[in-house]
């Protein structure tokens, strides 16, 4: 039997215990529906409030978070989440408005959404923005749907091929796959740019477009970006920008100016919306003129112009050839849009530029400090992240071991084994919200670990040591597939 560190909420249940209770009914009683429409039992836990609080408090202490310390997960932009955002998104006027209220009663919400659309357009150089997509992958799917709709509207039915670089996030091919497109992988060249020869060979009149992350997942800004975009456009394709790495580009360059047609934002990366232990995200999408009419519906717009005395009336508008609705209601308003709005409003043009400048400085500083200890396969000035190799000549220590050992030094590990084109990849993104001392301690730890890899490799193979839990048996999890638990009294019958 495995040791139970913290019982489940079901195991903590005791029949008859009460938590928060509801007031008695103040209306005359109506009989319940016929018995055959009722459930026979409700097998849910019974606990007191204090039981619940202590359970979740204990669980919270098993987590490592940005509020605990450095979290340099490549391509995830784990920056500090300002506390004021937690307050603004919980203002009663935002919390307690229903998504189907008449627009006259929610002008505050609609102004916020309208402004945010405008700000994101300005930041990215696009002419239209939808706030509806719920996450980055959802934004990607939105973008790919628009690309398909664009070609279809022109009667161009033979375009079925999506070009995707080998360094791309897995969501890119998966998004194209959801529309039945075939994926053509484009290799990277020795400097980490798109291989132009391979791209030229793939460009023909069956290309839907290209999905490019720039800077890419190696942290490299493509030195031939204008050439790449021209080649895709010359064969009639559209250019998709994966905005996962936008934290490098605020006030530095606008993807719309470079010629991208569509890009999703990750408000939970670039604009400090907390990641929430895996979500919710928020993935607005910006488009150029070519895709403006295909945006999901509805968008926020001005439905009645105002004048000097009366403000305009904000409401919803539907683009002419809209791909339709991506989710119910209006996007991740409270958790995503209000926090991002608050964050952008506190930065202004110079503040946004500083974010990217320091995100890039921090990455380059770490890269410089680690260069003599770890191999950097694509070694030039990087953007907001870089990739090192987590292995050493003559040692069986792997990137995984290094990642796990970092936990013993109280750091969250970098992303490992991604991108796939780097052997034993460690992908490091420090973000702009870390000071020099933290970066130095992290670099020192990685240098020390490189020494340990030579002197005491078993220390790394068995790491982590000081965390509340050790390495997991992932095979057991996948083979036995225990995916839920039950109340103790139901355990035997359910299992």
């Amino acid at each position, binding site marked *: 039997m495995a040791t139970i560190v913290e019982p489940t909420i079901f195991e903590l249940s005791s029949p008859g215990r009460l938590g928060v209770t509801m007031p008695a009914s103040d209306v005359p009683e109506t009989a319940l529906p016929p018995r055959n429409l009722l459930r026979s039992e409700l097998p849910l836990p019974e606990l007191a409030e204090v039981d619940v609080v202590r359970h979740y408090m204990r669980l919270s202490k098993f987590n490592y978070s940005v509020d605990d310390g450095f979290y340099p997960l490549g391509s995830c932009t784990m920056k500090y*989440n300002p506390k004021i955002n937690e307050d603004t998104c919980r203002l009663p006027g935002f919390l307690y408005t229903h998504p189907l209220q*008449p627009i006259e009663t929610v002008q505050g919400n609609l102004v916020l959404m309208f402004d945010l659309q405008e700000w994101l357009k300005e930041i990215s150089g696009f002419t239209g923005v939808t706030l509806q997509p719920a996450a980055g992958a959802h934004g990607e*799917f939105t973008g790919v749907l628009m690309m398909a709709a664009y070609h279809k509207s022109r009667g161009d039915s033979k375009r079925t091929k999506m070009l995707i670089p080998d360094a791309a996030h897995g969501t890119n091919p998966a998004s194209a796959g959801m*529309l039945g497109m075939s994926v053509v992988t484009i290799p990277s060249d020795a400097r980490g740019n798109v291989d132009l020869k391979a791209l030229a060979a793939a460009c023909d009149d069956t290309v839907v477009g290209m999905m490019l992350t720039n800077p890419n997942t190696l942290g490299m800004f493509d030195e031939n970006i204008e050439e790449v975009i021209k080649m895709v456009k010359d064969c009639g394709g559209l250019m998709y920008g994966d905005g996962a790495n936008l934290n490098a580009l605020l006030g530095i360059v606008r993807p719309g100016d470079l010629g991208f047609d569509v890009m999703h934002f990750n408000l939970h990366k670039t604009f400090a919306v907390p990641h929430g232990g895996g979500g919710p995200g928020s993935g607005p999408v910006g488009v150029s003129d070519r895709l403006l009419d295909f945006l999901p519906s509805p968008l926020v717009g001005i439905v009645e112009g105002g004048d000097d005395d009366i403000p305009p009336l904000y409401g919803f508008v539907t683009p002419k050839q809209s791909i339709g609705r991506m989710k119910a209601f209006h996007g991740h308003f409270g958790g995503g849009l209000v926090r991002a709005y608050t964050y952008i409003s506190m930065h202004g043009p110079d*503040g946004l530029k500083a974010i990217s400048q320091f995100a890039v400085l921090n990455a380059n500083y770490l890269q410089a400090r680690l260069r003599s200890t770890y191999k950097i396969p694509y070694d030039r000035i990087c953007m907001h992240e870089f990739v090192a190799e987590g292995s050493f000549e003559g040692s069986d220590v792997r990137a995984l071991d290094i990642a796990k050992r970092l936990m013993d030094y109280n750091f969250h590990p970098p992303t490992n084994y991604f991108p796939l084109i780097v052997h034993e990849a460690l992908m490091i993104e420090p973000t702009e919200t870390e000071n020099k001392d933290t970066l130095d301690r992290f670099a020192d730890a990685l240098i020390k670990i490189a020494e340990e890899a030579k002197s005491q490799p078993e220390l790394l193979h068995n790491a982590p040591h000081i965390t509340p839990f050790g390495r997991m048996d992932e095979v057991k999890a996948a083979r036995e597939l225990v995916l839920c638990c039950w109340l103790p009294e139901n355990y035997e019958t359910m299992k």
Partner: protein
Amino acid sequence: MTYIPISPNERDAMLNTVGVKSLDDLFDAIPQKHRFPELDLPPALTEMEAAALLNDMATTNENVREHLISFLGAGAYNHYIPAVVDHMLRRGEFYSAYTPYQPEISQGTLQAIFEYQSLMTNLTGMDVSNASHYDGATATAEAVNLAFAQFRGKRKKIVMSPTVHPQYREVVRTYSQGMGLEEAGDDATADLEVGPEALMSLVDESTMLVVVQYPDFFGRIHDYTKLIEDAHTKGALVCVVANPTALLMLKTPADMGADIVVGEAQPFGIPLWYGGPYLGFFTTKKSYVHKMAGRLIGETVDNRGQRAYVLTLTSREQHIKRERATSNICSNQGLLALASAVYMSTLGKTGLQQVANLCYQKAHYAASELSKIDGFGLCFTEPFFHEFVLCCPKPASEVNDYLLDHGILGGYDLGNDYPALKNHILMAFTEMNSKQEIDTLIEVLKEME
């Protein structure tokens, strides 16, 4: 305001280590003519100013706690949220963590989501739950993806009841536009009085999925057992879109034989928040787990012999399976799944049953009083839970405007989606509606000209 903790001296030392003179020198790879655009944005605010600005915007709204009596539901419900819920969500350990890819230092998130999965399977009666989808509408679309993957494209027809939430049907249409599906039943002009069995005339050997809602969009409680049995004889799967509050009282979709049960768990501890973020739950039978999209947490042990939890069956997902994955989803509504788990735990079995009963009682009191008013009546005769369709003597939009003038947020104007229901309002009631509020509604409507 800045969150950059680097002094000018430190910056210069770091630039020196990197080997460049200035911050701008880091950006030589950017095409020069597009480098450093001047952004036309409002100047930066301090925290104090931003707080005031956001407060101004929020107070411009009329909300359902301070200004309006609300009987609006239609997919988003005004329920009481115990204080514990937000206190737990505000812990930085939960909200400022990433996806639990490093299980040794993420057991808090992993166990909480495992418990969320367990609460959902016990609620719906199904075998497995994933770690959640974006919302009820996209969870419904993911049910279509599951069925499509299960039949490997060999069956291409979905039959969707017109009494599934209109926005959910719209999202399914958007999601499936690249799949070449035949879609039947999704017709707002269909006869809305007929029972669910009428859908069977559309189900055939090419049907992969039948989608119904429970209670349906009009609040009606149907027992889908017969429909599901018949659909199964044709080899089709059946997805039930369920309201979780109703499931606290009603027969489970699993007892009716459903293959997939999805829905919107916003009623469980998530504020209205003008429509999001919400929480799409997705549960199914164990045999479909490999075709189910989304994250999944499983139990295991660590190398110290401790029970622990990990992300499992990840090879189904996009980062491994790429274009062959069922879906491109790579997040879940983590923090909101936690909210719903804390909500369910804090109310517990008894509190939750009280919530369901109050919703039911208030709605039935309101229904009986409303139908006594001249010109008003209940549109349908079937049993209902906490929502019902009110027939009005004039267009719903006019009734709602009149109610709003009296500080009442009426129900949902069904004429928006169903041409035959221009004079019909979908009214929702929860434990938040006192008898006094309902009586005010009755009084105001009685005086309507």
